[in-house]
């Protein structure tokens, strides 16, 4: 008996080894049908539903991370925005380039350089059946003003007041041309006053009430969020083109692709480019793309030892090969940027390589380290996304070349803010979706207005503050572009962070799904999705 079972044992082991070798031998084999029939990605454009469209479907959307909170002023995290933009509405929604387009506002005017008046529609219904008035808007925006998620975007805002039941007046401290765009920020979601007061006192945001196109139906933390069409949405011409949206969280990139391929999901809004070739040869799915203003960057805490030294910061910028980061992080799908102030190439006044610095140059980096008298040190890179973790390993290797020994620590996105506040993130890798108007990110990211918010690098400099002030005070974009060009050159010298690349935006959809729209930051306008 013994003998035969040993024989079988060896047979099995042999089989396993053969299987492994087999698995190794044919990595390029593609299983999907229709090879040679490549489906190039389509550019996502704004569209209107056809008359015969089915507007009553349940649409399943997969994303990578769970949302954080239904309180809009709590966070500016993208994963959060996907959901709360569906539940609440804002005075202005953003368009493809993140510029303002009126939503609740019927008309508005600039009374003087510093005074704006907004008139909202009449008869806007909240999910619990009340009418939304100027009181709600004023209350909600004042709350936003106090919160930190928006912080600097509202710094120039002086007073928010009610004129009559449907008119709101906002005065600013100086000219603030970007105000409508600022009002598109997700922290500016209008939360009805009565609901907000009762919720804020109990600190229970689990049953949100808004005026948006969808009502929250169900949430399973870490798994899914289901929202249903709100039939009383005030703008009946622009209500949801589908019955409900289910946001499913699948942290694993290929898992999300597979979900769309198998029809389990209709749209993947966080496409992992590892599957790029594969989905192009699959005729059941369609890949949509759009250029991006999402800047992946390596940040560091400018207050901590060595990072407070300009030469060390410059050395880091020289030490990292951005092409390699792009290759590993997003499999080469994007464009590297040589910038230190999160200017995406399509932003107002963006300069491609300010002062022509920071092409990969390890020798120069070592020289700068020596010049700074830095013998090298140990530090930590905080990440919370798969892509960032991959980039971190690359960055880690480059930093090691110049004597910086960095440990990579992965956390959940929801605690990232607390790591920043605690100064527990000496280095970090994440992405930042830039607005077209630099005023909307420069001040928040690199001045005292953003401390405790998104000034994660803790970088402060009065000279830059003056430039920000200057850029804000003009309504002439040519003048502003020039000022922002100077700011970028200044920042290149200062190197408060190391921008790596912008990644092309993709959304993977079922081939029959219509109404897929992508802006420079993310797929959006899910209310337009239909079959």
């Amino acid at each position, binding site marked *: 008996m013994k003998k035969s079972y040993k024989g079988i*044992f060896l047979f099995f082991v042999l089989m396993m080894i053969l299987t492994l070798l087999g698995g190794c031998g044919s990595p390029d084999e593609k299983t999907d049908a229709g090879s040679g029939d490549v489906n190039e990605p389509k550019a996502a454009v704004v569209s209107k539903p056809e008359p015969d469209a089915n507007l009553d479907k349940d649409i399943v959307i997969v994303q990578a991370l769970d949302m954080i909170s239904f309180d809009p002023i709590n966070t500016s995290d993208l994963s959060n925005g996907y959901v709360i933009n569906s539940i609440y509405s804002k005075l202005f929604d953003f368009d493809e380039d993140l510029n303002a387009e009126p939503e609740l506002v019927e008309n508005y005017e600039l009374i003087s350089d510093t005074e704006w008046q907004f008139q909202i529609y009449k008869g806007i219904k909240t999910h619990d059946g009340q009418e939304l008035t100027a009181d709600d808007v004023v209350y909600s925006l004042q709350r936003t003003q106090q919160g930190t998620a928006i912080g600097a975007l509202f710094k120039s805002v002086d007073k928010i007041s009610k004129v009559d039941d449907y008119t709101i007046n906002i005065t600013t401290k100086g000219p603030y041309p970007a105000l409508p765009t600022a009002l598109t920020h997700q922290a500016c979601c209008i939360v009805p006053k009565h609901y907000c007061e009762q919720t804020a006192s109990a600190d229970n945001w689990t049953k949100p009430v808004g005026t948006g196109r969808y009502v929250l139906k169900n949430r399973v933390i870490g798994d899914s969020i289901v929202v249903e069409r709100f039939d009383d949405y005030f703008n009946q011409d622009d209500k949801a083109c589908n019955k409900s949206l289910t946001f499913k969280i699948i942290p694993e990139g290929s898992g999300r692709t597979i979900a769309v391929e198998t029809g389990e999901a209709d749209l993947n809004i966080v496409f992992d480019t590892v599957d790029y070739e594969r989905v192009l040869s699959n005729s059941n799915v369609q890949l949509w793309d759009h250029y991006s203003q999402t800047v992946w960057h390596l940040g560091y805490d400018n207050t901590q030892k060595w990072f407070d030294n300009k030469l060390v910061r410059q050395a880091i910028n020289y030490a990292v090969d951005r092409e390699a980061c792009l290759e590993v992080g997003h499999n080469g799908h994007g464009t590297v940027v040589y910038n230190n102030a999160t200017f995406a190439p399509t932003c107002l006044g963006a300069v491609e390589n300010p002062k022509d610095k920071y092409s990969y140059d390890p020798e120069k980096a070592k020289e700068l380290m020596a010049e700074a008298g830095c013998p090298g040190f140990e530090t930590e890179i905080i990440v919370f996304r798969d892509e960032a973790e991959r980039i971190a390993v690359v960055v880690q290797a480059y930093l090691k070349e110049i004597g910086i020994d960095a440990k990579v620590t992965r956390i*959940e996105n929801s605690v990232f803010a*607390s790591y920043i506040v605690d100064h527990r993130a000496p280095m970090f890798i994440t992405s930042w979706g830039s607005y077209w108007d630099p005023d909307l990110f420069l001040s928040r990211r690199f001045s005292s207005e953003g401390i405790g918010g998104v000034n994660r690098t803790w970088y402060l400099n009065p000279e830059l503050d003056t430039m920000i002030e200057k850029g804000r005070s003009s309504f002439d974009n040519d003048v502003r572009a020039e000022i922002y060009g100077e700011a970028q050159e200044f920042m290149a010298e200062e190197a408060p962070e190391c921008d790596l690349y912008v990644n092309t935006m993709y959304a993977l959809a079922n081939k029959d799904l219509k109404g897929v729209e992508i802006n420079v930051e993310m797929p959006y306008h899910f209310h337009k999705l239909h079959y």
Partner: protein
Amino acid sequence: MIKYVVKRLLEMIPIIFALTFVVFTIMYFTPGDPTAVILGNEYTEEASMRIKQELGLDKPFFVQFVRYVGNLIRGDFGMSYITRAPVSEQLIGRFPNTFKVVAGAMLFCVALGVPIGVFSGTKPYSLLSNITMVIGLLGVSLPIFWLGLLLILLFSVKLGWLPSSGIEGFSSLILPSIALGANYMANIMRTTRSSMLEVIRQDYIRTAKAKGVSQRNIVRKHALRNAMMPTITVIGMNIGALLGGVVLTETVFSIPGTGRLLVESINNRDTPSVLGCLVIMAVCVAVSNLIVDLIYAYIDPQIKSQYSGGRG
């Protein structure tokens, strides 16, 4: 019998209490300021002090522990630092998924492991029996997470038969159950086989054979019940391991269960959730041990009659 059940139930309470103490103590020493996690962006000194007072985090260790246990008895696991929702709500949302996976794995182990074990135990020289032994040997050494990845590669990626993630419908339960259960199935198979082998050699079986009872009846009526004892012990011992393994299974298959909640909460430094997950899993282990003991007592008349003496 009821007396026995009650006695075992009462014995469970101090164990769960002690366990809560252990877990609470470990988590108490987590470095870092929990109020920074709670407040995030809105962190200020005063806010931090206020929250500490509200949550009683400024109190000494024992006061905090007593308070925690007091709330626990009322089913209150505290508030999550991150979602600011009650931990019990999260657990209620997540636990059914974990239960499904564990139950699926259990079913897979028992439904396959026992019959194959019995068969190969009664026919120890057959080809099937030998194959069983080999699979058993390899099976106990397969890491859950690697097996999970291999299953995904084969059944989801290559063949496209089964989903690779999620927990909707029966089909998505198949792969996780197999991945989680494989180790234990191998274990159960081996145990059943060897205890079957042993029982078959006993005198009373020989007697039965001599009396002309058919092989089938011998197995069914005589051997099985006795051979089951070690198998049940192994099943019972493995429930804990299954619940440990579920953390990995849920990670591999992206299943939103208690295991993944635990990992997320650890990454989030969300102490109340971590505690809640650990306590709930420990309770599960204790309860399933109890159930196994009861089944044991039910099957084995000797224990049934001894119950008043209790078990260590």
